[in-house]
C-alpha cells in the first residue's frame, strides 16, 4: 500500500503534526487575550495535518531525476557517515580541547579522509586557518572562541 515514497513521508508528517498539536493544546492560556500563544501553533498543526493528507493522495510523479537524487551509492553513505562522525567529535571536543586544537584536528582529518593526498599542504592549511581565524575573532573582533587547553 505504501509503495509511494510521498505516502510514507506523508505519514511521518502526519505523526509529526499530531505530536505538535498535542503539545499546542497543552499550552497554557490566559483570559482577556484575544489571540493567545496557542492559537497560531494550533492552526499550524492542523494545516500540516491537512497538507500531509493532501500529500498522501497527491499524484506527484516521481521523476527519474528525483530518484537519481535520492539514490546515494553505498560508498558515499559511508563517507557521509564518517564525516558526520568527525563533525560530531568536533562538536564534542570543541570547548574542552579549544577552538584551535579541535579545528586543526577536524580540518586535517576530514580533508585527509575525503581523499586529499598532499599531506604537507593539508597540514599547513589546517594549522594556519584556525590560528588566523582565532586571532581575528578573539583579538580583533573581541569575540571569544573557546581557548580550551591552550594557554592563549
Amino acid at each position: 500500500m505504501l509503495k509511494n515514497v510521498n505516502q510514507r513521508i506523508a505519514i511521518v508528517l502526519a505523526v509529526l503534526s499530531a505530536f505538535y498539536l498535542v503539545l499546542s493544546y497543552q499550552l497554557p492560556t490566559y483570559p482577556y487575550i484575544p489571540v493567545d500563544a496557542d492559537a497560531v501553533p494550533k492552526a499550524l498543526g492542523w494545516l500540516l495535518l491537512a497538507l500531509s493528507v493532501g500529500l498522501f493522495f497527491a499524484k506527484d510523479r516521481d521523476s527519474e531525476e528525483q530518484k537519481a537524487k535520492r539514490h546515494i551509492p553505498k560508498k558515499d553513505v559511508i563517507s557521509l557517515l564518517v564525516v558526520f562522525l568527525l563533525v560530531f567529535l568536533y562538536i564534542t571536543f570543541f570547548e574542552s580541547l579549544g577552538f584551535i586544537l579541535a579545528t586543526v584536528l577536524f580540518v586535517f582529518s576530514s580533508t585527509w579522509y575525503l581523499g586529499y593526498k598532499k599531506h604537507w599542504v593539508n597540514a599547513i592549511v589546517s594549522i594556519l586557518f584556525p590560528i588566523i581565524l582565532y586571532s581575528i575573532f578573539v583579538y580583533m573582533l573581541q569575540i571569544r572562541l573557546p581557548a580550551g587547553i591552550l594557554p592563549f
Partner: protein
Amino acid sequence: MGALEGIATGFQVALSLEGIMFVLIGVFVGTFIGMLPGLGPISAIAIMIPITYGMDPTMALVMMAGVYYGAVFGGSTSSILLNAPGISGTVASAFDGYPMAQQGKAGKALAIAAISSFVGGTISVVLLMIFAPMLASVAISFGPPAYFALMLLGLSAIASLSEGSTIKAMISAVVGFMIATIGIDPQTGTARFNFGSANLLDGIDFLVIALGLFAIAEVCYLIMNRAKKSVGSAKEIGSLRLSKDDMKEMSGPVGRQSFLGFILGILPGAGATIASFISYITEKKIAKNPDEFGKGSVKGLAAPEASNNAATSGAFVPLLSLGIPGSGTTAVMLGAFLVLGLQPGPMMMTDRPEVFWGIIASMYIGNIFLLILNLPLIPYIARLLTIPRPMLISLVIMFSFIGVYAISFSVFDLYLLLAFGVLGLLMRMFAFPAPPFILAFILGGMMEQSFRQSMTISGGNISIFFQNNISLVLIILSVLSFIFPIIKTIRTKKKEA
C-alpha cells in the same frame, strides 16, 4: 532628508575608503562562492555573517549586499566553463553559455555574461533608487493587518512559485513556521515547545537554520560529488573581445530583460532563478531565429544574465522599503540586518539614511568592481576553482561552526546545526524546497506578532483584515497564488486526459 541629500549621503558612505574596501571584499567573496558549484548565495551570506560581528553595521551590510549580487554575478562563470551552474539563478546561463565555451569561445561567453550582468545590475540599481523610497513612503502607513497580509502573500507566492510540487513547498513553509514558534512567546511569556530545555527558550537562531539547511546540506552533496573534477584550469579561455555585431545583438535583450528582471525580482517569491528562466523564454519567443537558442546564441546568454542580476537588486526593494523579504536569499539578508541590530522597513530611510542609501549607492560601485573582476581577471579567478574539494568541504564546515558558536556561545547550537544539516539533506533528497522553509522561519515570528496585534486592535474580530483596502487586496492575491497552481494542475491533467 530629501532623496537627493540621501543619495549624497549614500555615496559618501560608499565612496569612503572603508566603503570601497568592504564592497570589494563582498563582491570578491561573493564571486568566488557563487562560482563554486553547489554553494549558493544563501550559504555565501550565512558564512559571511560571523565576520561582520562587531563591525559597523552600514559597512557590514554593504559587504553582505556585495556578497549577494557578487554570487549571482560569479555563478555564471561555472555555468559557462563547466556546465555546472554555481547557483540556481545561473542555470539558464548554461543553456547557451556552455555550448559557446565548447566552440572555443569561452572568453566571448564570459565577456557577454559580464557585460550583460553589469548592465542589468546597473539599470536595476537606478530603478531601485527610484522605487524603494516610493514604496517606503507608501508603506509607512501600513498597520499590522496590512503587514500580516503582505507577509502571507510573500509566503504563498514563494510556495506556489517553487520548483516542483506546490504541496511540498507549502509543507516546507509550515514546518519552517513551526520551528519559529519554539521558544518564549514574546507577547505572553509562555514557553512553547522547548521540552523543558533552557537552550530552546530563546528559540532557534536563524543562522543555525540558514547554515544547516543550506551550507551543511550543500556540503553533503559536495561530499558525494567530490570525485568530480573541479575545473579544467588550463582550459583555453580564448579572447574576451566582443565584435560590434555581438554588442548590437546583445543590446536588445539586455535592455529589455534588465527591466523585466527587476520587476520579477520585486515580486514576492520570484527572484533571480525564475527571472532568468522567464527572460530566456521570452527572448527565445520573440527572436527571429529561435533555433539558435541552445547552440551558443548571444541573445540566449545575454538575456538570463541581465535578468538575474537585475532581479537581485529588485529583491532589495521589498527588503529595504517594507522590511519584508520575498525570497530565501533576502530572508537571510534580513537575518543579517537583525543580527546587526537593524530593522529594515519604511522607517529605515528616515532613521538610518546612511544604511539605506549607503547600500544602494554601494551597488553602483560593486557592479563596476564586478565588471573589472569578471573581465580581465576572470582567467585568474577561475583558477580558484581548483581548490581541492576535500579541503573546501572541511573549511566550509569550520566556517559554519564559527558562525553559529560566535553568535550563541553554545555547543548545543552546534548539535542543532548538524541536525538541520541532516534535515536539509533529506529535504533535498525528497524534493522539498528549502527557500520556503527559511522564509517562513524568518517571517513566522513577525507574522504571528502582526496577526495578534491586529486581533488585539479589533478585539478578536477577524474582519479587520478585510476592512482595510491594502490588506484586503493582499489577502485576495495570496489566496489566488495558492489556488493558481491547483487550477494549473487540474488543467494539465484534463489536457492529458
